[in-house]
C-alpha cells in the first residue's frame, strides 16, 4: 500500500521533527553563550522523546515517496529502541561533559543527525534509501568518534573508523550495483519480484547479495568485519562509545533484517548460510577474544560483537519466531548495554575516570550498591536465568531449533558458556579482591540509568509477556502479506 505525498509527510513526522530540531539547536548553540551546551543537550533529549512519542501515537502503515520509505510495526519497534538509545546517551553525557571538558554543543546535534540517519535506515525500503540513511548515520558517527580532537587516541579512532567505514560503504555500493544489474530495480519489493520471476538463479545476484551483507555486517560489527570495533570503542570518549554500542546497532540490525526478509526473501536458503556463518564467527570470537582484555571498554566491544552474533542466530532461522527473537534480543541488549556504560561512566576516583578492570577490585566493600548493580548486569550479559539476558538468548535459540538449525544453537550455547567466564571474572574481582578505595559519588542521571537498567534486567520476567506480544506484532510485519 502506498501513501500519497501529504500522508507521506505525516508518516515522516518523527523524522521531520528531528531535522527541524537539529537545525534549530544548531542555531541556539551558536548564539547561546555560557550554559549553551546544557540547554542544547536538554532540548535535544526533549526532541528525541517527542519524536518517540510521535512514533507511538501516530502509527502509519504503508510506503511513501514511491516506495522509498516504509512504516510498519517493525520500524516502529526498532525506532523506539534507537531513540531510547540516543536519548539515554545524551543524558549520560551531561556529567562527563562537565568533568572532562567535553563541552561542544555540536555533540548533541550530531547525535540527533546520526539518529535521524538510523531512523531512515530502519524505514529504508529501497537500496537508495538504505545507502542514504547509512551514510547520514555513518558520517555523523565518524565525526562524533573524533570529536575529542585534542586526544591522539580519539582522532586515531575516528580516522580508523572513517577509512574502514568508507571501504565497507564501497563494498555495499558494489553489491547494490550488481543487484541492480541483475534485477533492474533498487526497490526491495521489486528485487524480490524479479528474483521470483527470473528463470534461473543468477550467480551474479548472489555475488551482489554477499557484498551487500558484508557491508551491513561491518555496520553491526559482526565477524569478520569487526576489526575496527575494539580500537574505536577504546579510543572514543566514553559517552560516544556508549552511543556506538547502543543506537547504531539497533538501526543496522533492523536494516539487515529488512534487506534479507524483504528484498532477498526468495533467496532465503542462500543468505541463511551467510548469516549463520557470521553468527557463529561473531559468537565464538566475541567469547574467546574478550578473555584477555584488561580495559573494560575493549571488553564491552568484544561483548557487543558476541551479542550481535547471538542476535543473528534468530535471523538465521528466517522465521517469524526468529525475527521476534531478534527484536527482543535487541531490546534486552540495549537495556543491558546502557546500564553497563552508565557504570563505566561512573568509574571515577580522584584522579579521574579509569578503565582498567583490575581497578574495580573490592568494589563490593566500598560501593556495595554499584557492585550489586554491575553484578546483576554481568550475570545478565552472561545469560544466567532468570535475568533478561537469559531470555534474550532463549528466544533466538528456540527459533533456531524450530528451524532445525541444531548445530548453530549448540555452538551458540557453547560460546555463551565460554563468554560467561569473562563476565564472571569482573564479578570475582569486585567481590573477592582487596579493595582499592572508594569511587567518587555517582551523578544522579548515571545512577538513574544504572538503576533502571538493573531493575529491568532483574525483573524482566514480569514484563516478558507484553514485550513478547509487542515483538510478535513487530515481527508479523514481514509475514502478513
Amino acid at each position, binding site marked *: 500500500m502506498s501513501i500519497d505525498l501529504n500522508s507521506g509527510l505525516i508518516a515522516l513526522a518523527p523524522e521531520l521533527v528531528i*531535522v527541524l530540531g537539529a*537545525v534549530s539547536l*544548531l542555531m541556539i548553540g551558536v548564539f547561546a553563550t555560557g550554559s549553551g551546551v546544557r540547554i542544547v543537550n536538554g532540548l535535544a533529549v526533549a526532541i528525541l522523546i517527542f519524536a518517540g512519542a510521535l512514533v507511538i501515537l501516530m502509527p502509519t502503515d504503508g510506503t*511513501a*515517496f*514511491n516506495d*522509498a*520509505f516504509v512504516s510498519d510495526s517493525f520500524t516502529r519497534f526498532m525506532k523506539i529502541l534507537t531513540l531510547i538509545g540516543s536519548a539515554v546517551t545524551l543524558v549520560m553525557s551531561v556529567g562527563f561533559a562537565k568533568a572532562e571538558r567535553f563541552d*561542544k554543543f*555540536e555533540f548533541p*546535534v*550530531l547525535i540527533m*543527525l546520526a539518529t*535521524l*540517519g538510523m531512523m*531512515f535506515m530502519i524505514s529504508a525500503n529501497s537500496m*537508495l*534509501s538504505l545507502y*542514504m*540513511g547509512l*551514510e*547520514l548515520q555513518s*558520517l*555523523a558517527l*565518524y*565525526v562524533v568518534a*573524533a*570529536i575529542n*580532537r585534542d586526544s591522539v587516541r580519539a582522532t586515531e579512532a575516528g580516522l580508523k573508523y572513517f577509512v574502514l567505514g568508507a571501504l565497507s560503504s564501497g563494498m555495499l555500493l558494489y553489491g547494490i550495483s550488481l543487484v541492480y*544489474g*541483475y*534485477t*533492474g*530495480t*533498487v*526497490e526491495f519489493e*521489486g528485487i524480490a519480484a*524479479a528474483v521470483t520471476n*527470473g*528463470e534461473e538463479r*543468477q*550467480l*551474479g*545476484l*548472489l*555475488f551482489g547479495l554477499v557484498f551487500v551483507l558484508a557491508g551491513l555486517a561491518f555496520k553491526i560489527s559482526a565477524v569478520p568485519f569487526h576489526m575496527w570495533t575494539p580500537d574505536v570503542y577504546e579510543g572514543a570518549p566514553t559517552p560516544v562509545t556508549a552511543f556506538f554500542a547502543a543506537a547504531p546497532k539497533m538501526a543496522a540490525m533492523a536494516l539487515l533484517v529488512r534487506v534479507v526478509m524483504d528484498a532477498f526473501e526468495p533467496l532465503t536458503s542462500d543468505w541463511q548460510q551467510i548469516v549463520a556463518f557470521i553468527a557463529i564467527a561473531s559468537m565464538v570470537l566475541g567469547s574467546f577474544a574478550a578473555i584477555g582484555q584488561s580495559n573494560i571498554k575493549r571488553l564491552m566491544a568484544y561483548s557487543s560483537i558476541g551479542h550481535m552474533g547471538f542476535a543473528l542466530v534468530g535471523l538465521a532461522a528466517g522465521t517469524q519466531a526468529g525475527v521476534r527473537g531478534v527484536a527482543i534480543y535487541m531490546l534486552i541488549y540495549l537495556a543491558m548495554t546502557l546500564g553497563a556504560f552508565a557504570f563505566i561512566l561512573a568509574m571515577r576516583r580522584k584522579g579521574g575516570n579509569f578503565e582498567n578492570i583490575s581497578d574495580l577490585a573490592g568494589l563490593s566493600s566500598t560501593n556495595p550498591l554499584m557492585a550489586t548493580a554491575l553484578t546483576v548486569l554481568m550475570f545478565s550479559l552472561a545469560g544466567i536465568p532468570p535475568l533478561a539476558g537469559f531470555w534474550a538468548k532463549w528466544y533466538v535459540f528456540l527459533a533456531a531449533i524450530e528451524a532445525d538449525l541444531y548445530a548453530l544453537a549448540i555452538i551458540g550455547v557453547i560460546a555463551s558458556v565460554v563468554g560467561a567466564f569473562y563476565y564472571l571474572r569482573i564479578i570475582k574481582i569486585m567481590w573477592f579482591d582487596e579493595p582499592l578505595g572508594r569511587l567518587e559519588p555517582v551523578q544522579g542521571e548515571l545512577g538513574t540509568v544504572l538503576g533502571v537498567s538493573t531493575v529491568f534486567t532483574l525483573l524482566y520476567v514480569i514484563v516478558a509477556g507484553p514485550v513478547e506480544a509487542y515483538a510478535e506484532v513487530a515481527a508479523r510485519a514481514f509475514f502478513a502479506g
Partner: protein
Amino acid sequence: MEQGALLTGLPAAFFYLFAFVAVAAALMVVSSRNPVHSVLYLILTFFNASALFLLTGAEFLAMILLIVYVGAVAVLFLFVVMMLDIDFAELRTGMLQYAPIGALVGLVLLAELVIVLGGSSFGPETVGAIAQPIPDLAIRENTAALGDVLYTEYVFFFQLAGLVLLVAMIGAIVLTLHHRRDVKRQDISRQVARTPETSIEVVEVESGKGI
C-alpha cells in the same frame, strides 16, 4: 545498439583507448614516486572515465565528473599535497612488504568476479524491467531526463543527500575550528559604537603624583 552485441568499429576503438589509459593512469596514481604526479595521474583517470561515460550516452555524469572531481576535488588534493609536509617516501616503506598480499587478495577477487560474471548474463528481461531507463537521446536529453525525476519522484533522496552534506559541513567545522582567545580581532561594530564618553576619562592629577 542491439542488446548483447559486441562493440565494433570506432566506438570500440575509443572504448579500449579510454579504458586502457584509465587503468594505466590509475596504476600510476598508486605507484608514482612524486605525490604531485600521483594527483596529475588521478586527473587523467577522471578524464578517461568521463570519456567512457560519454560513450555510453551519459553526458550529464561525464560533465559532473569533470566539474566536481577535476575542478574541485583534484585541485584541493593538489593544494593539500603541496602544503602539507609529509614524507611520502617514509609512508611508502611498508608498501613493498604488503604489496604481495594485497595483490594476491586482489587477484583472487578478480578471478572470482570473472568466473561469476562471465558465467551469468545480465538478462534481456532485466533491461525491460529497469524503473528509469535512459531515454533515447533524440527524444530527451540526459540532463533533462534526470531533472524530470530528480525533484519529483526522487525528491526524498535529494533531501536526504542535502542532510548528508549538512552533516559533512558541521563535521568539518567541529573538527577544525579553533576559537583562539589569545588573538585580538577587529570588531567594527564595537569600534564604531565607541563615543568620547565611554573611552575618554578626564582625571584630575594632583601635582607631584602619578595616576
